[in-house]
Each structure stands twice: as structure tokens, then as C-alpha cells.
């Protein structure tokens, strides 16, 4: 089985921004993305708790792509990182069937 190195990008963001981020991710060259729920968290801006009623709900967006895709995404997303309080990490993973990504 042929394994290929890919980047695994994780972005924590407000649920309302998902459509926008989804577009940015795709334009950066990723073949897709997956969104996972988040319950609560705490950081520089204080503690936070899922509370969809008042519109405060964060989610985790996961995107697997090449190092190039990840680089492009970083460029595109940089201006939003502060204004939208995004948390972004990039890890390394291996995948099979790289043509899917």
C-alpha cells in the first residue's frame, strides 16, 4: 500500500463562519473538509460554552491536503485569524490513495 504524506489542518471557529471557511478551504486546493462539534473551551478571551440559543457555538473544521494546499490556506486565512479569533494547527498525517486529495 502506497502511503503519502499530507497535512492535517484543524481550525476552531464560530459555526456561522463554516460556509465561508469551507469556500476558502476549497479555493486553497483542498478536496473537501469535515466539521466536528465542540462543547466548550477556554483561552485568552475567557471561558466559553456551547450555547446555540444565543448563537455561541464553535466547531472544529478538519481539512486534509497537500503541503501546498496548506500553505495557500495559511495565506488566505491569515487576515481572519485575529478578527475572528480562530485557532489553527497543522499536523502531519499519511494517507493512501493520494489522488483523492
Amino acid at each position: 500500500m502506497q502511503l503519502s504524506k499530507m497535512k492535517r489542518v484543524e481550525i476552531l471557529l464560530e459555526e456561522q463562519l463554516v460556509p465561508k471557511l469551507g469556500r476558502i478551504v476549497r479555493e486553497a486546493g483542498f478536496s473537501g473538509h469535515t466539521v466536528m462539534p465542540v462543547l466548550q473551551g477556554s483561552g485568552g478571551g475567557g471561558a466559553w460554552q456551547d450555547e446555540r440559543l444565543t448563537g455561541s457555538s464553535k466547531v472544529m473544521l478538519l481539512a486534509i491536503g497537500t503541503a501546498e494546499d496548506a500553505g495557500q490556506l495559511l495565506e488566505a486565512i491569515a487576515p481572519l485569524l485575529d478578527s475572528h479569533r480562530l485557532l489553527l494547527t497543522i499536523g502531519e498525517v499519511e494517507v493512501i490513495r493520494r489522488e483523492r486529495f
Partner: protein
Amino acid sequence: MILETLTSPIILFFVLGMFAGFTRSDLAIPEAMAKAMAIYLMVAIGLKGGVAIAEAGITRDLLLAGAAGVGLSFLVPYPAFFLLTRIGRLARVDAAATAAHYGSVSLVTYITAAEMFDAAGMPAAGFMVAVLALMEGPAIISGLSLARKDSDSSRAELLHEVLLNSSVVLLIGSMLIGYVAGPEGFAPIAPTFAVGYKGILALFLLDMGLLASRRLRETRTITWRLALLGILMPAANGIIGVVLGTLIGLEPGTAAILGVLGASASYIAVPAAMRLALPQADPGIYLSMSLGITFPFNVVVNIFFLSWLAGVLA
């Protein structure tokens, strides 16, 4: 009425929720249950309002009240912005976002008031549900123009959010359904939306108490100046609403509820819009003020005061 207010189970459940929140009890209403109750309440009052309009027709009062409501929603953010920057010392973008909340309305405050006016024998006109729905959006537009910023999202996105957000669609949609179905069409589904109504409202207020107290507990951004404004603004806006309602000739209960709409501040629709359009604004500020301070003040004190005022003015 003051004793009735304070021994009304609806208010008492709100107090219980506040108590559980402040004592950090692990009591929690599941998110899906809270949303289900909100949907139920919106459909119920929408249908009721629609049936009421079907029975009474589209009257002069309805049109006047609608115009007054839209006007209030558009204009209230301007003085609010002024107070929030000067007295509250907020930055422009935070002040603008918060001002939008005060121009818009709170569904639960409306329903609670409607229930209590009903019980006190000065019911508000059913068509006020339409006014409630109309008042949600304009304040968002004013708030954004105050932020001197076309928002992060395009105008089209924003208009979409204002006109088609879930509570507007549910309220207006249910009202239209109630209007088309009329009293006979409504009859078969009436039990669901009439029998359970007040009990569900009581449970919903339990959750609101939890949310409001959690907001207050976790907040680090609310100064005494802001807390004061969180009481002064709804008091002033409420009086303006009642006076306006009386001047255009509404019944006392209806004028009082126009005051309640003016006094109430949004904590569901507007925060969601602001996270999209003004993400730089701090939700800790606008939610703590509208949900943590203004909402309890309205429910426990202001509703009662405004109904008294409307009675005196009439």
C-alpha cells in the same frame, strides 16, 4: 398585580434558574430541548396572532403599531450608541453591536409580558406578534451603519440574514398559516399549542435564568457604568414605547406591550447576526448586558411598571 407577578410560576422558574446558575448547580437544560421549546413557543404565538388577525382583519391599529415598531427598532440604536460610547466608554464597534441588540427585541420577554397582561385582564392585541417579527431586523442595519463598516459579509448576505433568519421565518410563517387556516382550520391543532403553552414557557424561563446567571457569573467585561445602562436604557425605551403606543391610540395592553418590545433587547437573533457581521465586537459585552442584566430587569420589574404606566396614561 405586584404580588401576582412575584408568585407567578413563570417568574418563579426564572428565579429558580438564576439560583441554580449562581450556586453553580449542575442543572442544565439540554440544548435541543431549549431549541425545541423556542420553536414551539414561536409557532404557538405566531398561530395565535394569525388567527387573531383573521378574526379582526387588518386594522388601522395593526398598521400604526407596525410602523411605530419598525421606527423604534431603527431609531433606538442611535441614542443607545451615544450612551454606550459616552457613559459606557465602549469602543465604537462594541457600542454599535450592543446598540443593535437594544433596538431589536426579545421573544421571551414579549411572551412573558403577554401572559402576564392576559392574567391581569389587560390583554394585548394578537397582531402584536407581527410587530414583534418586524422589529427584529431594522436595528441590525442601524447597528452596522453605526459601526461605520459594511460588515465582513456582503450586503446580500446580511439582508438574507435579516429577512430570513429562523425566528422571522417561523413567526411570520406561523402567522400566515394561522391567518389562512382561520379559527376552524386552527381548531384541530389548537390543543398542542394552547394546552401546553404556559407550562412550556415556565420551563423555558428556567433555562433563561440559567443562561442569564451564567452570563453574569462568567463576565469580566461589565463595568458598573454598563450595568447601569443595562437598566436605564430599557426603562427609557419602554416609556417611549408606551407613550408612543398611547398616542397612536392603541388599547392599554397593546400600548404596554409596544413598550415592552421597545424595552427588550435581543439575545438570540442579533448575537448570531453580529458574530457574522461584526466578529470584532466582544460577545461578552453585548450578551452580558442584554441577557444578564436587561432581561431579568424587564421580566421582574419593567413589565410590571410598563403595564402600570399604560394604565395610567389610558
